[in-house]
């Protein structure tokens, strides 16, 4: 009797495991998990960001800022805080986003030289982030439910086993017509994204150039975005990454927009 029970239990667990595995292979579910691993790592995070904007002639511009993030729930609302350090003309400016997946984002900027808090109209999520090849949506993530996903194949990329997922926006979207995402089977991070226009031509490539484990969390510490049409490229380095700092949501308010929290921002 006992053996039967045990056999049933093992059998049950095996079925669950199989089902889970099949589930995991479901493209949409995979994209969700990848999204969690990439954009919702830990409950909050801090990083010192160095962004290099390289144009087609190789001329380079550098943007340096500190970024704080707090997730209300995994896959749910997020709050971002950015403190610009350089170049000189934007130094000390702060920028805050309250992101609601599927809803409207609220954005504010603070210009300390005139003590001005200004909400920014955030209609076009596809507009460039500080003139880089990354859009606002690339920075905080496009919600996986906005696209239809299909698992094309399982393959390898730079010696890593990956899932290749094809995503097509449910509604017409000016940023891309189709996207291929190469998801690392182990870390679930999107190691590469290829964007295509309606003529099937590749327009942009996003790459995770370097992945390191920070506080036990696989983290992309160098990312790049290449614009094939413009010949430009943006390389972003994330330094001094810290997770689970215990950030409070009151930090993402006008009070701190005007008074950067020096505990985190120097």
């Amino acid at each position: 009797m006992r053996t039967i029970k045990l056999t049933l239990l093992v059998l049950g667990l095996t079925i669950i495991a199989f089902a889970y595995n099949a589930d995991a292979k479901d493209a949409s579910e995979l994209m969700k998990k990848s999204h969690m691993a990439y954009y919702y790592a830990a409950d909050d995070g801090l990083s010192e960001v160095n962004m290099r904007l390289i144009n087609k002639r190789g001329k380079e511009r550098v943007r340096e800022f500190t970024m704080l993030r707090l997730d209300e729930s995994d896959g749910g609302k997020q709050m971002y805080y950015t403190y610009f350090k350089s170049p000189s003309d934007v130094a000390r400016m702060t920028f805050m986003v309250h992101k609601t997946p599927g809803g409207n984002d609220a954005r504010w900027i603070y210009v300390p030289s005139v003590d001005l808090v200004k909400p920014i109209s955030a209609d076009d999520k596809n507009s460039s982030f500080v003139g880089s090849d990354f859009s606002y949506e690339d920075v905080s993530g496009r919600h996986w439910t906005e696209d239809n996903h299909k698992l094309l194949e399982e393959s390898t990329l730079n010696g890593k086993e990956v899932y290749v997922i094809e995503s097509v926006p449910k509604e017409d979207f000016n940023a891309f017509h189709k996207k291929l995402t190469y998801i690392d089977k182990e870390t679930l991070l999107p190691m590469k994204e290829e964007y295509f226009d309606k003529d099937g031509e590749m327009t942009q490539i996003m790459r995770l150039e370097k992945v390191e484990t920070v506080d036990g969390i696989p983290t992309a510490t160098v990312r790049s975005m290449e614009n094939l049409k413009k010949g430009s490229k943006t390389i972003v380095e994330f330094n001094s990454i810290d997770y689970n700092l215990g950030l409070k949501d009151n930090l993402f308010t006008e009070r701190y927009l005007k008074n950067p929290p020096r505990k985190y921002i120097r």
Partner: protein
Amino acid sequence: MRRLLVFAVIFTALSVTTARAELYFGGFLQGLYGGRTDDTNPTATEYTASETRLQLRMEHFGDNAEFFGRLDFFYDAAVAPQYDWELREGYAKFRLGSKIDVKVGRQILTWGTGDLIFINDVFAKDYRSFFIGRDDQYLKAPQDAVRMAWYNPIGELSIAWTPRFEPNRLPTGQRLSFYNPMAGGIIGTQAQGMPLEPEAKFDNSEIASRLSRRFGFYTAALYFYRGFYKNPVGFDPNAQAAYYPELNVYGASIRGMLMGGILWLEGGYMHSRDDEDGDNPYVPNSTIEGLFGYEKQIASNLTANLQWQVEYMQDYETFESQQMPGSQYRDELYHLLTSRITKLMMRELLTLSGFIFYSPSDEDLYLRLMAEYKYTDEVILAVGANIFDGEYESTEFGQFQKNDNLYAKITYGF
């Protein structure tokens, strides 16, 4: 002397702050050159700007307090060659408990919702800078003030106390001409004596306060100001001089997201305390002002906004009966329409922007055009134009109609 005192306070405080303290420096070197385009302008000089400016920025923060200084040194040769300096900001910022933020010292103060239209923002502006192409940061003149913000369950209550009245900086006639009612026309160099400032006493300090609160995508605020008109709009017949009449402002605003754009509404009652009944011809009557604004990104990298301001004058009949027959004077309702258009190009390295003020009731306008190119991360080049026009010489922008100017600016940031 006051400046030195502020300096002394900052540096003393600097030397006694806590561990983990850090010091940051920055600033810019800038050349600004501009000239008028109207030869009939009765100003002392043909240059609206000819200056080299070095701004040094210093920031120091410890665990408990923060110090900030912004100091300008400049050589200005527009009228006559002169060297000068100005402490733009110099303050200490610290916390009292967990709910109160305090900022003490020379600082820039701003609130309200308008884009270059100010109703409840009764803080000092510098139109001398604004009209000749200096950076946006120079539109705001610093005030020596104590500001406290108390974060409480109702919202944020901010109080700014400016012990010594700080007026707006208006054209003096030397490089920008303006209308003088005594002269009955636009004047330049023969500008009359300085307006009388309120006596330096405790009773004459300025108090500005705001209670604000966020409701989802909207922020609402109530305002109160007690002080003086920031422009010398009153005339003292005994002293035969212009002065700053007493003013209270009561107002409210709301701003937030609507249909992918930003909407703002603001209103205020300007209570002219030196002219309660509106019968003093030398002091402005009380007014009620309203502002409506909307901003939206209308295309990729193209943002536009529109504003409509209305000002209703109380006791207009009395005002009208005091005017000279045949002279030009304002309507009971003053209207001002503005629009800003900003286009970012070349990966945000090139910014083209235009801002227009147009008053259908005063029949005047002011157009600001600018192109700015970030040549490198350090070097920024800009050219711009300030164009004024008006049917009459006495209106807000019409009085500057001879001041049309073009300018070029180069900035090296570090």
